[in-house]
């Protein structure tokens, strides 16, 4: 029974013991490294395939349709059919494209989110590399994806691609700031950037201590993912498909892949930092982790089924005039509470109470600062 609970570390230990009888120590380490990388990559890519199915099903339900239902039972084999279609499609390169950049771009877009999985704790003892800069590594690696988008947009030599790429970069660079700032509050409580430490210090999930930070993180990471309501870089009614307009076949599939893999990364980081990671009663740790990830992913899909797209001019203002100041105020509030109620010495319930008071004051301050912006804007327009 105990075996089910720590299946990951057990399998690693058994494999290491078996390999140790046949190979020297460094070879065992190398093989285990390659195997764990392959396992994570395969897991992520299979999840990606079925996320496309899940998204189509959920949105179909919200729009009173049935969604994919022809291939296999309940349409479950639809992703496989799509994959075969993508692989057999003609690969088109525009004659005027910058060939090298055009071909490297899809790889540069997919690689960073896959690399971010190195520091994600999937369960108790199931983390590939518990770096002491864990969360910073995940954020820094993810920020490299922007370059791939820019390369794709520029090298296609298509004006829609270029506009899409420029929109993507402007959006992703702006929303990176509130995203990192929103993580600061949690890092101040844990006093560590390591993902393992962040999980082990969450006797109470940080969403209860830092609800404002969670909301800012959630909003700005949706913007980082270029998903509705922030899908301005690929707005199909305005600029065809944005930066990947010219791509077809498997290269197009790689852009799709990078989007869904980034969704999983964002949900995994959100789960680890705010929802308590793999911690939970009764069920095995990795089941808890997957459940929490899918809750976040479901909310993302729910947004997509519900919300309209923002306008380009609203986007930057929202990031710099709302998200960044609120995230800074949250850091200020966290600093005061940490000073008054030291996180390591006080009882969790006292902390919850202290943060509740802090968050209520924060909410009042934010509401006072931003009261009725529409009314003020209307007055400004009629005055001018």
């Amino acid at each position: 029974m105990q075996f089910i609970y720590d299946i990951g570390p057990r399998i690693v230990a058994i494999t290491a013991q078996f390999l140790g009888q046949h190979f020297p120590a460094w070879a065992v380490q190398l093989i285990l490294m390659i195997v764990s990388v392959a396992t994570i990559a395969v897991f992520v890519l299979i999840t990606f395939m079925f996320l496309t199915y899940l998204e189509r099903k959920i949105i179909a339900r919200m729009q009173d349709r049935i969604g994919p239902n022809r291939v296999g039972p309940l349409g479950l084999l639809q992703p496989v059919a799509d994959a075969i279609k993508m692989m057999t499609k003609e690969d088109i390169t525009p004659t005027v494209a910058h060939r090298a950049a055009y071909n490297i771009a899809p790889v540069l877009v997919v690689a960073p989110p896959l690399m971010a999985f190195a520091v994600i704790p999937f369960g108790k003892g199931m983390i590939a590399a518990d770096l002491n800069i864990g969360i910073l590594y995940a954020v820094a690696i993810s920020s490299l994806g922007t370059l791939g988008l820019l390369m794709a947009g520029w090298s296609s030599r298509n004006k829609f691609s270029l506009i899409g790429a420029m929109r993507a970069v402007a959006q992703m660079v702006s929303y990176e700031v509130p995203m990192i700032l929103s993580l600061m509050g949690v890092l101040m409580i844990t006093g560590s950037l390591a993902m393992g430490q962040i999980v082990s210090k969450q006797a109470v999930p940080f969403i209860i201590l830092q609800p404002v930070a969670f909301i800012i993180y959630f909003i700005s990471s949706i913007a980082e993912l270029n998903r509705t309501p922030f899908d301005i870089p690929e707005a199909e009614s305005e600029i065809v498909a944005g930066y990947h307009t010219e791509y077809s076949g498997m290269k197009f599939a790689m852009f799709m892949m990078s989007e869904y893999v980034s969704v999983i990364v964002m949900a995994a980081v959100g789960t680890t930092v705010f929802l308590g990671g793999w911690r939970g009663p009764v069920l095995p740790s990795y089941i808890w982790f997957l459940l929490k990830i899918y809750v976040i992913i479901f909310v993302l899909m729910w947004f997509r089924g519900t919300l309209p797209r923002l306008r380009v001019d609203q986007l930057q203002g929202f990031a710099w005039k709302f998200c960044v100041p609120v995230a800074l105020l949250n850091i200020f509030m966290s600093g005061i509470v940490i000073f008054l109620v030291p996180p390591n010495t006080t009882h969790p319930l006292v902390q919850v109470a202290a943060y509740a008071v802090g968050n209520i004051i924060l909410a009042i301050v934010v509401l006072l600062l931003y009261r009725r912006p529409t009314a003020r804007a209307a007055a400004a327009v009629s005055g001018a």
Partner: protein
Amino acid sequence: MSITQVAFILISAITLGSALAMVTSRTVFVAALWMVAAFVGVAALYILLEAGFLAAIQLLIYAGGIAVLILFAIMLTPRVMQPMEGLSRFNDQWMFVAAVSAFLFAGLWALAIRTDWPVNLQRVTGDNIFLLGRGFMTQYLLPFEVTSILLLVALVGAIVIARD
């Protein structure tokens, strides 16, 4: 030669090669991409020195943020899609600049070789992010604050220039 030395030589070669390719590239965009490659090489050097925090910051600020710089290059360059054919990379001052650069390089080389660099063989123990933060807030507070003010001034200056 140890593995670390081999890695160091490879990474240095990639970094310097990218830097050279950046200077000789004829298209603004391609030059910027080579610059990113050089920055990533520097980040790899930091990892080799076991300075993981610096490496992550290098990626986040330089390699990630440089996309904005490329963006400005695109916006400010007419005919950004075409490489600048027919334009010479040299103007009539190239000999003078080459002489100054060679002199500067020789000077730095001599300095680097002659200086008795303090080698601290004692390993840093404990969480080095914690030590870094403590260092910034106590021993090196003044340089830290001065740098911050310098960056703030640059930021304000950029906005003032942009609004004119």
